[in-house]
């Protein structure tokens, strides 16, 4: 028995509103406290810069051509990693989805690599590709590939035999089977795959660049850290966080729109 939603809706909305107020209050409180503690010298400003310093550093960074160049290089490495990792992952997943033999042969190893820390393979990428952007992009692609495969295969598991039967009965050709049944049914998995694809492309590129790279944000962070310019390091971290949060929000919206035919919210991917 379902209760009329209007009756339960109002208090729930009010609670959500209060929760977001509380959240904002705590964030603002922490920032204020942090600023004060640095100002009165309880926290050493050399190790943890005050929020106002970080904001000033951020403005500085955004205007600095060298920093801009670093962001651009990292951005294009991430994009390249995402495109390579996701397309390879999608291709492999569709092949595995179409053949039980391939699935039995390769899904196990893929799931195994997924569960290992992939950073241990990083030196191999540096050996092969050197210190340039390609090395970071290739490692990012490698990171994201496994997540894409596993999520797309999970999505293919949502395809229902009865829908394929209807498609056949109503004269669907192979292209229709994919476009009208398989892809829409597997969409939550494909969305999750894209999300994890971009997330791990990002992580992979960042790790590779922090570890060894001759360009991009990684070396920038290394330089500022070595010079104890904490405000700049924090500003970079904050910028990256803002980009990630905005991207996540846009993503969730797009996904909700694409999946609006689903009456339950169960299909939404946790965008973390």
């Amino acid at each position, binding site marked *: 028995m379902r209760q009329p939603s209007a009756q339960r809706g109002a208090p729930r909305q009010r609670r959500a509103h209060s929760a977001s107020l509380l959240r904002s209050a705590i964030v603002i409180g922490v920032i204020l406290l942090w600023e004060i503690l640095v100002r009165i010298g309880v926290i050493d400003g050399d190790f943890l810069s005050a929020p106002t310093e970080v904001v000033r550093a951020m403005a500085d960074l955004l205007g600095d051509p060298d920093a801009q160049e670093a962001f651009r290089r990292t951005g294009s490495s991430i994009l390249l990693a995402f495109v390579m990792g996701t397309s390879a992952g999608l291709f492999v997943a569709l092949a595995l989805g179409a053949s039980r033999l391939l699935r039995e042969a390769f899904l196990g190893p893929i799931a195994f690599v997924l569960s290992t820390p992939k950073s241990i393979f990083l030196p191999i990428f540096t050996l092969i590709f050197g210190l340039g952007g390609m090395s970071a992009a290739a490692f990012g692609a490698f990171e994201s590939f496994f997540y894409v495969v596993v999520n797309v295969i999970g999505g293919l598991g949502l395809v*229902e035999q*009865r*829908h394929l*039967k*209807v*498609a*056949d*009965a*109503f*004269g*669907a*050709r192979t292209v*229709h089977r994919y476009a*009208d*049944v398989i892809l*829409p*049914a597997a*969409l939550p998995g494909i969305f999750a795959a894209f999300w994890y694809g971009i997330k791990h492309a990002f992580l992979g590129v960042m790790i590779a660049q922090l570890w060894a790279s001759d360009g991009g944000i990684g070396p920038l962070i290394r330089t500022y850290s070595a010079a104890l310019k904490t405000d700049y390091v924090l500003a970079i971290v904050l910028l990256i966080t803002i980009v990630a949060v905005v991207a996540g929000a846009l993503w969730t919206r797009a996904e909700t729109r694409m999946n*609006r*035919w*689903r*009456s339950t919210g169960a299909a939404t991917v946790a965008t973390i």
Partner: protein
Amino acid sequence: MTMNIESVTLTYERAKGDPVTAIRDIDLEVRRGEFVSLIGPSGCGKSTLLHCMGGMLRPSSGRITVDGEPITGPKPSRAAFVFQDYSLFPWRSVVDNAATGLRFAGVRKAERRAVAMKQLELVGLDHVAESYPAELSGGMQQRVAVARALAMDPQIMLMDEPFGALDEQSRRRIGIEMSNVLTEAEKTVVMVTHSLDEAIFWADRVLVMGKGPGRIVREFVVDAPRPRRLDFMTTASFDTLRAELFGLLEGAPEEVVAP
């Protein structure tokens, strides 16, 4: 249009275990404008026979022709299915679901939506054309599935326990409604059902199938004009037929020998 089924046998080959002969030596003729219902115990091969008629399964032996042309695969303009579980595409609106077969046939969007809309009007659902299947009751979903089949303007409609998943009351109401819609559209229908009432109410001919392996054991002619009204179910001839069918099905249909 005449569909001829000539000594059709279908044996399922199984990866594990022995092959199963689901139907053996079925002979049947379905004529234009006729409503035929298939009734029989579970597992006697009703769905198998229907799938063969629609080209979804290839008979192991024997042949099926429509106006002399052999059936080699599914072709919705010749035979369109209505399945028990509706199986609408949940990611498509009602009208786009009704237009599914036309889309596969390459009909342009505006045109196929217009045709689908007309069929939705016929089944009384044009007002929910832009809704999604999840927002509809089971009975409404099945009417959309009927509209989807009708949109192909098929020579024959193949319905596999179309109302089996509905509650008793909706089942009777929607059953009568759809029977009238299809009668007025002058369709040819073969319907599998578990319900004696439904089998008699719908059909010009009731075919009773028996098990082991599936074959047609009896044929009853229901001699009443269509469209029929609900009170047809209260007539003496309906009762007599029902009693006879009941005896046949609840006795051991396997033992019954075709006359």
